[in-house]
């Protein structure tokens, strides 16, 4: 344990970063699958499915992410599931992401003109091909900026895994800050690393949004 912020400390932060990226990736992929299910259920004809998923979204959007992580982290253990810490945390983030992505994609599906569905039906297309070939591709395009925006939120959100003792970037920063006694420098670097990760995504998101806004303005 060196006393200054050197190569070893930086490597340690990068080790934390790899966990941050991995957690965000798992949650985004898992949340993408879950969110698709939620979005389809929210726009289905079944009242029960719509009610249940509406409630699911309400809970996850109406409570702090930190609490969701705590409840899932401890709750899974109580259910007798002995999962490794990273998996328990990843499940928490996945449930969170499913709710938010589901809501974003529901909005996009509903934003499409009703005529699209009616035309597809008139062509004799059943639910699956209708969704797969007509509705979803268009909805995803509309939802792309918001989806990218949520990915940024998710990456930042993984910092909360630090509070359950999981060593990702934010927590690695705290540990290094404690060994080097240079909080200003260390938290500055940690902030910069997050920024370097998130900013390109944010830029990409607003660029496609602007392009879409121009396209509709014409």
């Amino acid at each position, binding site marked *: 344990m060196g006393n200054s912020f050197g190569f070893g400390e930086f490597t340690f932060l990068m080790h934390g970063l790899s966990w941050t990226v991995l957690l965000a990736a798992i949650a985004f992929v898992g949340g993408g699958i879950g969110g698709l299910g939620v979005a389809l259920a929210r726009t289905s004809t079944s009242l029960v499915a719509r009610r249940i998923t*509406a409630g699911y979204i*309400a809970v996850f959007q109406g409570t702090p992410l930190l609490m969701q992580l705590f409840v899932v982290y401890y709750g899974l*253990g109580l259910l007798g599931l002995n999962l490794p810490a990273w998996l328990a945390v990843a499940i928490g983030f996945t449930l969170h992401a499913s709710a938010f992505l589901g809501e974003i994609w529901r909005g996009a599906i509903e934003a499409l003109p009703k005529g699209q569905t009616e035309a597809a039906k008139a062509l004799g297309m059943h639910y699956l091909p209708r969704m797969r070939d007509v509705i979803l591709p268009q909805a995803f395009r509309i939802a792309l900026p*918001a989806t990218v*925006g949520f990915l940024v939120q998710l990456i930042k959100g993984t910092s909360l895994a630090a*509070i359950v003792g999981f060593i990702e970037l934010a927590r690695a920063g705290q540990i290094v800050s404690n060994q080097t006694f240079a909080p200003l420098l260390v938290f500055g670097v940690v902030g910069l690393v997050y920024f370097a990760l998130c900013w390109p995504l944010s830029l990409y998101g607003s660029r496609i*949004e602007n392009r879409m806004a121009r396209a509709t303005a014409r």
Partner: protein
Amino acid sequence: MTDTPVFRPSRRSLLATGLAVLAAPAVLTMSSRMAAAQSLADIKSKGKLVVGIQGDNPPWGFLNSQGVQEGYDADIAKLLGKELGLPVEFVPTAVANRIPALVTGRVDVLFATMGMYPDRAKAIQFSKPYAANDIVLVAPKSTVIKTNADMKNFIIGVARSSAQDTAVTKAAPEGTTIRRFDDDAATIQAMLSGQVQAVGANQFYPLRLNKAQPDTYERKLDFVRQYNGAGTRLGQKEWNATINAFIDKIKANGELAKVYQTWMGFAPPEFPETLEGIPFTVG
């Protein structure tokens, strides 16, 4: 505004869900009852020993800059793994969530600098003590604290639910400002940055603090000598007996003393045979 998934569920669905969620604990109680009690055989069949440990509290348990778990607790846990013939997997836990991590089955055993206290003994099963630790109050030399009553004039930082938290909360007069942080790292950080004026500490805090700001900090008050034990879940009779036998063995063959010397720099003290209100074995 693209990056703000805006919050807009209907209020009615929010309310209905709140009510539905209230019913969930009943379901949970049932299923957690069904889960089987864990025995030594379960751990062996799993093929590894999962140990809850501190990640930021040198020399007890900490991660080095390569991200590898080290420290006194880590070495003792590795000896246990060797004894059982199992590889050890470390799960770093914050001070505040180590007991929850054990109780909810995240880890098999805690070697997490856990002071043995009667209230904790109600939540988990302690083993025989395997380390000693002095709980003290540390502050800059210039700070005037001579008695417990003097704490009232200062802002005291502690790691939430640590032994220091217990000791300071008990000793400090009514109305003392105590700020509780998530772990040792944050507490030490708060002292160094002047956010608190004194900290509830273990015997190694002064060393770490003075490394950052040389010749500044000293022990002000001695609260208690605590003994650390390994923690298992209540009622795990066989598992607790296995760990006690292991601790007896490393005390007898000198391995514990060797590890002690490595990390603490001095020989282990005499360990007590009993502690008031804390059974070492499943009764």
